[in-house]
């Protein structure tokens, strides 16, 4: 497969130019290495400089991200390194979010490590590298990029989880996480191999083409069989044909499903979620926060990039060959099991871990909806001669935007929550049992308030951002007029009530109960409070002032999925124009019955 046309001629200039496009990611990666070096040369006493350096770099990356974020040139998406990565509003948003989340973690990690006596200089660098990997996933435009991003991230996180050498659970959690992660990535890799086998490409665009072809062939085989029944003389090469045709789809589908399984593991969906509570509990709490935010975002980004954007041809999202059935099923299991398991949890970290699982369940519904819409759009393109602005595509974009929004809002809130947990672990024994939180509101009203806001956002209570995230997500799913999905939405909302119960238990502990004799000691330093303040603030602000965020997410989504071929650029321009004109009514091409139904 040849790569997309718009790359410069000479390698070198291309590289520099591309690095420019990738500035945020590049900076973060670079800083990862830099920190490694500084740590090697810095004396032990100067460890705390590591954090400042890291924060400086992240700030730099953030600014760079902002320039790209605001830059309209990227609205159509710019492919860099010969289509290996892409820079578009979607990745721009993710860059900012990931850098922000990473910074949030960095602010706390140092204090935590110092308090618990396992301070080590590589921490910041590892965090940066993991974030770099996550960002790469966000930019991924090629299976290889995706794989490398995921692995870079995962491997660094394995280390981070196990870094607390003076505590047994840490190592255990690391091993569990590592074994399962490695197992999953092996499965992922096998899936990738099959995909490559089916489509002969690793670049998404190429895969997409191959997918379509594979399916046309698949169908033709069935037709051939029918033809044979109808008494046509079978051609001598029929058997080869069978091999060739079947093989393509027969490789493609298991490939898709294996990759799906692996990614579902990464976002810790039931039943691949088992590692989550253990890893979250055993890991140093800031790392838990990192996992619950950055890693989750990366996983969802991968799902969106690969599945919603690429594997969303009509046949791949509809039964019997579609993967959406699986995701919907898993979503159901995930939200249910996640919530139920959290109900009886007294350990705050485990509780939040299960709650994070539950949230993934809601989120997967959005993924299904988006994919369905894109599949429909794809079909209407194919049948009605591809109008990029079809109703379904617009709906799909909205769905993607909603998913994006939801994961961001969730990541912010859960970062705040976990950081609060970390902050409460000022001495040997972390305050991980709910009862230890009793009367927090009296001792530290500010933090209690912040935590409460984050919890309410997770609970999905207006006017917190979490509510609007749910609202838009479920709106998108409802729009996808499918009774099963609509039932799942109602189910999800009822689940949210169960969720409310266990979040409420923390609020109750903080506000209703009187403080115990031995109050939890809190971390020194202003890092954690700052993070909680910011996350809480965002959890409110993102909700009440949703519109601008939404515009960006929308734009991201609109540049996100594309019909193959040159129509893309035209479409994006058209979309931008339409969006500037704020015309909410898309044409209703999808309303017309298509031939064949």
């Amino acid at each position, binding site marked *: 497969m040849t790569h997309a046309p718009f790359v410069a001629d000479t390698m070198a200039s291309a590289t520099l130019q591309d690095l420019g496009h990738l500035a945020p990611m590049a900076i973060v990666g670079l800083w990862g290495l830099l920190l490694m070096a500084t740590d090697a040369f810095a004396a032990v006493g100067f460890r705390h400089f590591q954090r400042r350096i890291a924060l400086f770099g992240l700030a730099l990356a953030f600014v760079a991200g902002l320039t790209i974020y605001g830059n309209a040139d990227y609205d159509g998406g710019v492919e860099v390194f010969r289509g290996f990565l892409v820079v578009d509003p979607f990745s721009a948003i993710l860059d900012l979010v990931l850098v922000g989340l990473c910074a949030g973690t960095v602010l706390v990690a140092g204090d935590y490590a110092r308090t618990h006596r396992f301070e080590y200089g590589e921490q910041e660098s590892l965090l940066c590298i993991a974030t770099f990997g996550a960002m790469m996933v966000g930019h991924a435009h090629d299976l290889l990029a995706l794989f490398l991003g995921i692995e870079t991230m995962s491997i660094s996180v394995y280390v981070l989880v196990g870094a607390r050498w003076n505590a047994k659970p840490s190592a255990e959690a690391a091993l569990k996480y590592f074994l399962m992660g490695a197992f999953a990535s092996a499965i992922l890799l096998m899936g990738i191999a099959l995909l490559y086998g089916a489509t002969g490409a690793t670049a998404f665009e190429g895969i997409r083409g191959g997918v379509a072809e594979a399916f046309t062939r698949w169908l033709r085989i069935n037709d051939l069989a029918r033809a044979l029944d109808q008494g046509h003389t079978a051609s001598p090469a029929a058997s080869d044909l069978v091999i060739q045709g079947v093989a393509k789809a027969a490789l493609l589908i298991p490939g898709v499903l294996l990759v799906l399984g692996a990614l579902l593991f990464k976002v810790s969906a039931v039943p691949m979620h088992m590692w989550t509570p253990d890893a979250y509990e055993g890991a140093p709490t800031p790392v838990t926060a990192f996992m619950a935010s950055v890693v989750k975002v990366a996983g969802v980004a991968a799902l969106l990039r690969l599945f919603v954007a690429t594997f969303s041809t009509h046949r791949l999202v509809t039964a019997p060959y579609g993967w959406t059935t699986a995701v919907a099923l898993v979503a159901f299991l995930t939200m249910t099991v996640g919530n139920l398991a959290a109900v009886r949890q007294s350990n705050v970290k485990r509780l939040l871990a299960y709650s994070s699982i539950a949230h993934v369940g809601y989120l997967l519904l959005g993924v299904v909806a988006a994919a369905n819409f894109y599949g429909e759009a794809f079909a209407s393109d194919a049948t009605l001669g591809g109008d990029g602005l079809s*109703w379904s595509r617009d709906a799909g974009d909205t769905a993607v935007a909603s998913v994006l929004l939801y994961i961001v809002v969730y990541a912010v809130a859960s970062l705040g929550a976990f950081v609060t947990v970390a902050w409460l672990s000022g001495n040997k024994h972390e305050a991980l049992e709910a009862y230890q939180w009793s009367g927090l*509101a*009296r001792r530290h009203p500010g933090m209690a308030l912040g935590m409460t806001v984050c919890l*309410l956002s997770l609970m999905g*209570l*207006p*006017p917190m951002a979490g*509510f*609007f995230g749910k*609202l*838009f997500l*479920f*709106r998108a799913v*409802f*729009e996808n*007029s499918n009774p099963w999905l*609509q039932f799942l*939405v*109602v189910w999800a*909302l*009822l689940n*949210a*009530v169960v969720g*409310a*119960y266990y979040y*409420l238990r923390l609020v*109750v502990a903080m*506000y*209703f*109960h009187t403080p115990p004799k031995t109050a939890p000691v809190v971390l020194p330093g202003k890092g954690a409070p700052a993070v909680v303040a910011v996350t809480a603030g965002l959890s409110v602000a993102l909700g009440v002032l*949703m*519109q601008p965020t*939404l*515009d960006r997410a*929308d734009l991201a989504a609109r540049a996100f999925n594309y019909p193959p071929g040159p129509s893309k650029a035209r479409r994006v321009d058209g979309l931008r124009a339409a969006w500037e004109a*704020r015309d*909410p*009514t*898309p044409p*209703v091409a999808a*309303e017309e019955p298509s031939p064949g139904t």
Partner: protein
Amino acid sequence: MNHLLSILLVLPVLGALTTALLPRGEDRLAKGVGLFFSGLAFLVSLPLATAFEAGRAGMQFEERHAWIDRFGIGYHVGVDGLSVWLVLLATFLTPLCIWGAWRAIDHRSREFVVSMLLLETGMIGALVALDLVLFFTFWEVMLVPMALIIGIWGSEQRVKAAIKFFLYTMVGSALMLAAIVYLAVVHYQVTKGTLSFDLADLDRVVLPPDVQALCFWAFVASFAIKVPLFPVHTWLPDAHTQAPTPGSVILAGVLLKLGTYGFIRFAMPLFPGAAAEAAQLLAILAIVGIVYGALVAYAQSDVKRLVAYSSVSHMGFVVLGIVGMTTQGLTGATYQSLAHGLTTGALFLCIGVLYERRHTRALDAFGGVAKVMPIFTAVFMIAMLGSAGLPGLVGFVGEFLIMVGTFSGSAHVLNDPPLLVLVAATGVILGAVYLLHMFQRVMFGPITHPENEKLRDLSLREQLVFAPILALIVLMGVYPKPFLETIDPSAQALAAHFTHKRCASVALARSGASRAALADDFAEACTDPMAVIRAVYGDERAPQVSGFGPAPRQEGPRAP
């Protein structure tokens, strides 16, 4: 003055922020600030009463801004006759509660005031919101402060009660949220791509019968729990009993009303077809609630619990008035809401007075109090009689309108309304039974407990807190004119709108279409809505006495 409502929404929040910034432990100061801001809010809200154009059905003080117009969510507020008085009730009761709690709330006053003020914003917002997402937002905003008030300053079982209250309500609102989103999506599809959550827009949508029923019940789930309608009432006694006095007052005074208000504003007009079908069942539930609540109230040995169950009974009347969908019924329901807010609020304040002095709510702990607290006796008695619906006091007007409307006008949705009213009216007897029972146990008879010998009578502060409420209880019973003439037009308009839209929904159902449609499409089909409905239901279900439209006045012209 068209920003009035917004100001009204912002003021308490400002107050909350100010209070939150106060230094810790400044109890009196915090309450003072809270009292100041809530009182200010009340003053600001007064123009609602004075500048409100009586005799106009539409929304007034309307205000509309884009908020999240990517999804057609707007900031759209306004009041009409059905909501304006409830808003005033909220702004009226809040300062009284804060003032009344001057001694009752002795710790963490700062948090208390913040909660109260946020709660006030939530209540007002839910009453004035005309955009469903906005409404839902405020609806949920009320939840947390109320739960805090119950859970922090309540009595023994407070935590359980708070959680119960919270979750109970959330279950309902979860379903309602689903219905709201669904409705918006359908609107989006029916209008070929107009995104909107605005009530006026969504109101144009007519859903096919089955879906309509689902959505209606989803809304009902939320509102019925809030009302509370039998059999989802069990959170109320706990919440009421455990909450501190101001909490109970606000809960009974305003929060419950939001349930019935939701019925009036959203559930009934949005899904008239389903509402008409469900009316019978709802009416029966309401009546069961009336009788059952009264019976259970009589069985209580805890004064507060008793009054709590009396709320179940009273709110049953309100629901009965609503589901009958007659002008009188709606007017009466709204009025009865106000009445219940005042009388039950007053009763809870009275119980608070006793609780402050004796720290018990057990009926047996009292007796003969009237001897030592004459002023209090008078206050308590007026509140009690108002609650019992004595003519000439506020409680009677609403009950009468509800029952007369249902009895004579609601045949178009109910079977044999007279029988329903007959059963409901037994509530009038039972009300007297349990209220007098309570009153006698507490007030009359010899003083059996020596502690009661020394009870202080109402202090000046308490008298000043009670005075306005009692004044209203009497005034609104004797001279309801100013209230009725603002409520009535809106009620009439709503009833008429209900019939028209119900006709549209009937027409849609008859056309056999499985997709939703716009009400406007049936405009010509529904020139005579009642005829269409009759054609479907047959004459015996059709109204013998239409509660709609301009009706002849038998007793001369109404005074201007």
